[in-house]
């Protein structure tokens, strides 16, 4: 159970959007990290996540997705990035954001790094996406940077990104 919950950084994308958001020089003084985003993108896209700029094929993930009419699951291994299936996955429209949360436990440890999360789109439609997500990076380095980038296009203006540090003591 978290003892402290500290905002490390908060950011809002300006006009023109941005192709990537990098959290660098992440303090190594917390136990876990939490990323909260509210995002839209300029085109049909998913969020890709990389730790420490690692782009070798050491990422794997499982995704459970519901659309309101069907359920699907995806299992990927040996990828060069995590694909968190998030904003504008269904290209819901310019004003439809998705709310996403990613939890990274023990990010300073010398163990393999894991991430879990959930995502929902704000679309009030027959089809609206909800996703549960679990990923892994087969790398023992402490996480000092996190990159989030859409697979296509840019994060749209007013997309927000918050990084929190969580301590257990």
């Amino acid at each position: 159970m978290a003892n402290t919950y500290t905002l490390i950084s908060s950011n809002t994308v300006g006009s023109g959007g941005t192709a990537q958001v990098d959290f660098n020089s992440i303090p190594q003084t917390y136990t876990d990290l939490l990323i909260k985003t509210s995002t839209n993108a300029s085109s049909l896209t998913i969020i890709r996540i990389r730790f420490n700029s690692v782009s070798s094929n050491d990422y794997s993930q499982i995704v459970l997705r519901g659309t309101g009419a069907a359920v699907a699951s995806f299992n990927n291994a040996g990828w060069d990035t995590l694909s968190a299936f998030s904003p504008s996955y269904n290209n819901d429209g310019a004003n439809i954001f998705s709310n996403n949360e990613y939890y990274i436990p023990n990010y300073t440890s010398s163990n393999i790094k894991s991430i879990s999360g959930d995502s929902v789109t704000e679309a009030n439609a027959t089809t609206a996406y909800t996703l549960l997500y679990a990923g892994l990076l087969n790398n023992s380095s402490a996480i000092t940077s996190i990159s989030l980038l859409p697979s296509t296009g840019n994060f749209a203006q007013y997309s927000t990104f918050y990084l929190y540090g969580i301590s257990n003591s």
Partner: protein
Amino acid sequence: MPTKLIINCETGEQTEVELTAEEIAQREADAAKAEADRVAKEAADAAKAEAKAELLDRLGLTAEEAALLVS
């Protein structure tokens, strides 16, 4: 030229910089992979839907009746 937002979590400084040529190339590779994944997924979804329709037809069930069976 696409740009990225860099946040230094120690100092709080935020800067917007242009992507490097390498980052742009990676971005284009990511986009191509995303498109390939989407196409593959659509093909898999379509094949699954077709197989499901054929099975329901063989069983003489509607989709609603099949859903009732497994509920």
